[in-house]
């Protein structure tokens, strides 16, 4: 693989791994606080799954970089906010239950359109990881879809909360599909899919669900900020998540 392809794949893998990791952390914040025991367990499972998926992508990234000292823990615990490449949608605080479930739904649907194409990647490790993750995502999409339907079609209050969550999240969700410099070469090499048609597929699937629930996607402009830009919430999340590891960087876990 030439240097340009390698650097773009590096950026794509880092973005996906960071998305999964930050969502895992937000989901884990519900542990002990979810509105009912079953959901407490479900969110802990979702968090653990996303953490497993993040690890798969970080491992491929570290292999690609080929620096023996670099590994997933280091990337997660010793990088500052400016170096993270997750989409802003995933770093927002957990909000209420509607906010959490809608975010999970929008991200699960993103993975649901991305992963089947990644299983056909010409990069063997990427294709293999995608096949593994896709199977586990079956349970995620069922869960978040059921909750969006339940809250969207539930009471006036649950519908109002879903609409409020949608108003806040919809513009940010576009960032999941924002093109990156060098994408065309990755697409041509069959390594990563073109995100533009995937965005259309995603919008069609999500829109069907929103229509079922009488939820209106806001007309506001899509957010195509660079993934290098973050809200203030990411730094606060990292301060919490990284504090123990940074107390003793040499500790053997």
């Amino acid at each position: 693989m030439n240097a340009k392809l390698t650097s773009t794949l590096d950026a794509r893998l880092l973005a996906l791994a960071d998305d999964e990791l930050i969502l895992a952390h937000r989901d884990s914040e519900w542990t002990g606080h979810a509105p009912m025991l079953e959901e407490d367990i479900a969110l802990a499972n979702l968090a653990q799954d996303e953490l497993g998926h993040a690890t798969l992508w970080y491992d491929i990234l570290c292999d690609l970089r080929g620096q023996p000292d670099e590994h997933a823990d280091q990337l997660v615990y010793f990088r500052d906010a400016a170096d993270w490449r997750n989409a802003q949608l995933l770093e927002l605080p957990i909000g209420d239950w509607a906010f959490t479930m809608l975010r999970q739904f929008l991200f699960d649907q993103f993975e649901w359109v991305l992963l089947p194409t990644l299983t056909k990647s010409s990069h063997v490790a990427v294709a293999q990881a995608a096949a593994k993750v896709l199977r586990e995502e079956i349970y995620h999409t069922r869960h978040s879809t059921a909750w969006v339907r339940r809250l969207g079609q539930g009471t006036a209050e649950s519908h109002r909360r879903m609409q409020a969550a949608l108003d806040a999240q919809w513009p940010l969700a576009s960032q999941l599909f924002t093109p990156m410099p060098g994408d065309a070469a990755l697409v041509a090499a069959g390594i990563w899919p073109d995100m533009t048609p995937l965005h259309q597929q995603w919008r069609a699937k999500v829109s069907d669900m929103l229509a079922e629930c009488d939820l209106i996607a806001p007309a506001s402009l899509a957010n195509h900020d660079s993934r290098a830009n973050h809200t203030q919430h990411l730094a606060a999340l990292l301060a919490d998540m990284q504090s123990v590891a940074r107390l003793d960087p040499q500790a053997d876990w």
Partner: protein
Amino acid sequence: MLTQKEVWQALEQVKDPEIPVINIVEMGIVRDVVIDGAAVTVTMTPTFSGCPALNVMRDDILAQLRTLGVAQPSVNITNAPAWSSDWITPEARAKLNAFGLAPPAIHGGDVNVILFDMPHCPRCGSADVTLKNSFGTTLCRAMYVCNQCREPFEQFKGI
């Protein structure tokens, strides 16, 4: 000189710490054994990618190999091909059921079977069961209740 059979038999002593009634061979997570003089390399694959039992099983495999007298034991972890619950042997399925953990349906990759085939209650055998939660006490379990004997039970999830 160790034989393949001796190594595989030793690996049958290693259990999944989250499901202590079945061993890692009958779960289908041991993929390969290579014996090269004093070195023995076992290739294994995780069930769910975030499974926290993976490192415990890896360490248990290394300990078993050392017990066999292997001077250079090693464990190689692979994600491909992705583990499928279809690889759990019929004997292990019976053990799971006796343990109270309903085995997953054989799905051959069919998402509809994975999501909609209901297990039988491991206690009374009834097919009249209700899914309470796709997620359970470990990544690989879902929670059900039996409408016949009214007992809750868990299922090993199909993937």
